[in-house]
């Protein structure tokens, strides 16, 4: 009986350990925010160019969406690589609950994450943009798959291109399905970010958000099992690292088997020789190789070429 009481006590102590000690040098704290939160015009095309001319309306817009726990920074290298151009716009969306602090992140759901994408999409459609392209990585790919599965784009202009970079469908960590059971005991999970990454990615991952992550990945997987058809005029390409410690490469197989174009053909898939998750972001990695640089360049070039 004493042992049982001791176990209950340990369990309750562990269960209560849901609040990490947050250093303000982390994004999770109260000092660092994603820059898009106080300078939307710098990041969102709907704010930077809200009254497009007729020719601007037909110009391609990339809506660049980052992954779980990340920020707009994840696509900054693509923007830097693009430089000043008249050929297309890049609109960097910050997912709901991201880029602010631990409490905001903890209380956000996958629907909040997704709303930021659809809000920017709808703003662009409303002000007249017609050539919209969704450039997504990791969890934002999953959010787009969910939109496709419920025919979200049937009531609006369909995106011209959808790019899925290292999409999350199957997690590499196969214990994620147990998060509902063990999550309340853990409270949160600490990530292994580098010091610089801690300024742009949350260091602490609340178990509530991991449950949301598992929920949306499960929804997307089941939708793929049932089959998804792309809207008319929409093409989709998957770019997947062949080794990925975060999202299992087998997710590319599920997307390939689960999606057909409107003409009932297969989608495009490129298996990339990389062991990085979201290999298109190289800043602040512990080490990168020439092949990593090459992969990034090839993909950036391909994103733009597919606009034509």
């Amino acid at each position, binding site marked *: 009986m004493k042992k049982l009481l001791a176990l209950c006590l340990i369990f309750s102590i562990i269960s209560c350990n849901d609040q990490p000690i947050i250093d303000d040098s982390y994004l999770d704290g109260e000092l660092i925010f994603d820059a898009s939160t106080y300078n939307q015009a710098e990041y969102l095309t709907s704010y930077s160019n809200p009254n497009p001319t007729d020719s601007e309306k037909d110009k391609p817009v990339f809506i660049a969406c980052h992954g779980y726990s990340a920020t707009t920074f994840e696509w900054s290298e693509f923007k830097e690589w693009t430089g000043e151009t008249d050929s297309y716009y890049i609109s960097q969306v910050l997912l709901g609950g991201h880029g602010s602090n631990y409490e905001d992140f903890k209380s956000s759901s996958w629907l909040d994450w997704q709303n930021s994408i659809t809000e920017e999409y709808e703003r662009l459609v409303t002000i007249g943009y017609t050539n919209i392209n969704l450039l997504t990585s990791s969890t934002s790919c999953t959010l787009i798959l969910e939109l496709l599965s419920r025919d979200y784009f049937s009531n609006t202009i369909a995106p011209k291109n959808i790019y899925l970079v290292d999409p999350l469908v199957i997690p590499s960590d196969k214990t994620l399905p147990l998060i509902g059971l063990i999550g309340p005991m853990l409270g949160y999970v600490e990530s292994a970010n580098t010091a610089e990454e801690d300024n742009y990615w949350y260091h602490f991952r609340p178990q509530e958000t991991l449950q949301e992550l598992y929920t949306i990945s499960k929804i997307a997987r089941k939708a793929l099992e049932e089959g998804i058809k792309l809207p008319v005029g929409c093409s989709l390409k998957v770019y997947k690292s062949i080794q990925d410690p975060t999202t299992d490469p087998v997710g590319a197989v*599920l997307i390939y088997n689960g999606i057909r174009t409107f003409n009932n053909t297969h989608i495009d898939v490129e298996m990339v020789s990389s062991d990085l998750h979201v290999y298109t972001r190289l800043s602040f990695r512990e080490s990168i190789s020439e092949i990593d640089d090459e992969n990034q360049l090839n993909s950036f070039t391909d994103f733009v070429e597919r606009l034509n």
Partner: protein
Amino acid sequence: MKLTNFLKSLSLVAFISTSNLSAQTDVILSDLKLRNVQTDIMNVGIRIQKTSGLYWENGLDIEYSNKSLLNDKLFFGFSYVSSRLGTALSSNAIKQDNYILSARYYARKNKKLRPFSKFNLGYFNADYGSELFDVLDNTSVITSLEFGLSYTFIKKLKLSSSFGYNFITGNGMEGPGTLYPIYLQSTISWNLKQ
């Protein structure tokens, strides 16, 4: 008169006692027969398996216990379960097959409810459906442990359910990505030999 009644009662008691003794003897003999006559056991059944966070994979299960080797306690078996007979039957799920050899030990011989533990060794194969994915691992050795309970409904019909843990899984860097660690399975089987 009293003596006559007493003798009648005595003979009745003696008759009843003799009858009971005879019936009890039959039960004991039958029980001894069951306990002492060792026979081979061959259970053949249908296995239904659900991986935590992934697919239903169903198939066949066969197990055998020899009369001279821990009879009715130690079983050697073979299972084939596949998503082809589960989630992939009518969906785009990956078609994957598990071929498993096993050794199972049952406790509580001659009881209806029996706990068991099982060691599995096998081979996993996934069909990704396109050459595009030849760069990914799609096969693996399976090693797993199961712990569960079996219940014998009638002499030949048995239901067993267990919790299983796969020691080798995919992790994004190597191994098939749809090989998960935790699963639950139930098998309903029929003894062909007894």
